[in-house]
């Protein structure tokens, strides 16, 4: 299992530099917002956390459809499915999701404080955005695994994957953003939405890999 994690991590960092592309896309999304809404610092500060979350969500969708497709094309997926007795397929999927998160999404989380400064978010808000992204974005990878597994046999499944998983990712977005607002402006406390966000991640960490494993087995042909 560790071997699978290290292999996927190496591939994520080495082949095509998925991590860097994601960060640049995130930067591009966040950087165009001030041009769109105008240089109103108060407005930017108010919508900043939401923009960071939406940017991270969209950037996190990049490369998700390759999660299993690359393995399917070179035949590795057959061997992962066959090894089910030794390494349960759902666990293999979980490990692949974690490797994807570390290689492609963690860099976004790390870049988010810098982009928070672009958006004129106050320091406490930047800290809240960082914390919610750190806790919430793994859920995107776990939900994404289901979409990627369903669309694994489709040659141009990228857009389909995004469309399939965005509705499921909405609760994550809602609680992530509301925790950020609770930390900056709102009278309501920060902790309840943050804990629900953590619960969502844990929930999808269990459901996502099992559903993805079922879809992969059904798609083996």
């Amino acid at each position, binding site marked *: 299992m*560790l*071997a*699978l994690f*290290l*292999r996927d991590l*190496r*591939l994520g960092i*080495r*082949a095509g530099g998925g991590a860097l592309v994601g960060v640049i896309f995130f930067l591009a999304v966040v950087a165009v917002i001030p041009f769109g809404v105008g240089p109103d610092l108060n407005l930017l500060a108010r919508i900043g956390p939401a923009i960071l979350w939406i940017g991270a969500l969209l950037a996190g969708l990049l490369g998700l459809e390759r999660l299993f497709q690359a393995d399917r*094309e*070179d*035949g*590795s997926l*057959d*061997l992962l*499915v*066959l*090894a*089910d*007795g*030794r*390494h349960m397929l759902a666990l293999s999927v979980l490990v692949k999701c974690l490797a994807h998160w570390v290689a492609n999404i963690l860099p976004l989380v790390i870049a988010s404080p810098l982009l928070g400064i672009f958006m004129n978010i106050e320091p406490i808000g930047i800290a809240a955005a960082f914390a919610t992204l750190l806790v919430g974005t793994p859920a995107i990878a776990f939900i994404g695994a289901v979409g990627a597994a369903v669309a694994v046999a489709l040659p141009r499944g990228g857009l389909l994957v995004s469309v399939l998983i965005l509705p499921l990712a909405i609760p994550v977005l809602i609680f992530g953003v509301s925790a950020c607002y609770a930390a900056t402006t709102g009278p309501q406390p920060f902790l309840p939405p943050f804990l629900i966000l953590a619960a969502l991640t844990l929930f999808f960490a269990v459901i996502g890999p099992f559903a993805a494993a079922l879809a992969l087995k059904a798609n*083996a*042909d």
Partner: protein
Amino acid sequence: MRLTAEKLSGERGGETIFAGIDIVLAAGGGLLVTGPNGSGKSTLLRILAGLLPPAEGVIRLEGGSEEWPTVAAASHYLGHQNAMKTALTVAENLRFWRDFHGDPHLDVAEALEMVGLPGIGSLPFGYLSTGQRRRVCIAKLLVSHRPVWLLDEPTAGLDAGSERRFAGLMRAHLEKGGILIAATHLPLGLEGVGELRMGAGR
């Protein structure tokens, strides 16, 4: 250990492509599956491995005890694709499969030497030629131990020398009590193994 399949039939897209196939292989037994294109050789292997459900029939592995409960757990499946990542080096690829499959057998350098590619471990897999890729894939069979080898066109792209070397590896596997089923339409240079002709009645 005995691998048996009874009255196996397989279908692709709702159409039956073979039916009533019986296979009995004891330890040390080999079987060549031959036949024209589209006769269901690959489908048969995928069904035996457990990647596709059989339309009818049962597949059993007897005497595998707890270590090898099912055919899938006891097999190396060598498909059309090589299951290697072009961005990683040959040694990284082989080391990954060795760790992932468990039951380590030969180490990576020894396995590469057995397929006639010594000193190639540090090259990215993507730099290799078709035949060299296939040989690395054959080395994957050697880095971890499995009693059953399911090989789908194993010699595609190999030169004559590599074919002979691979025949030697297959003979060694059978002599050690392994089971081997290979789908091919090229002679593999194996004597004393059974042959199953697919699609003869079509």
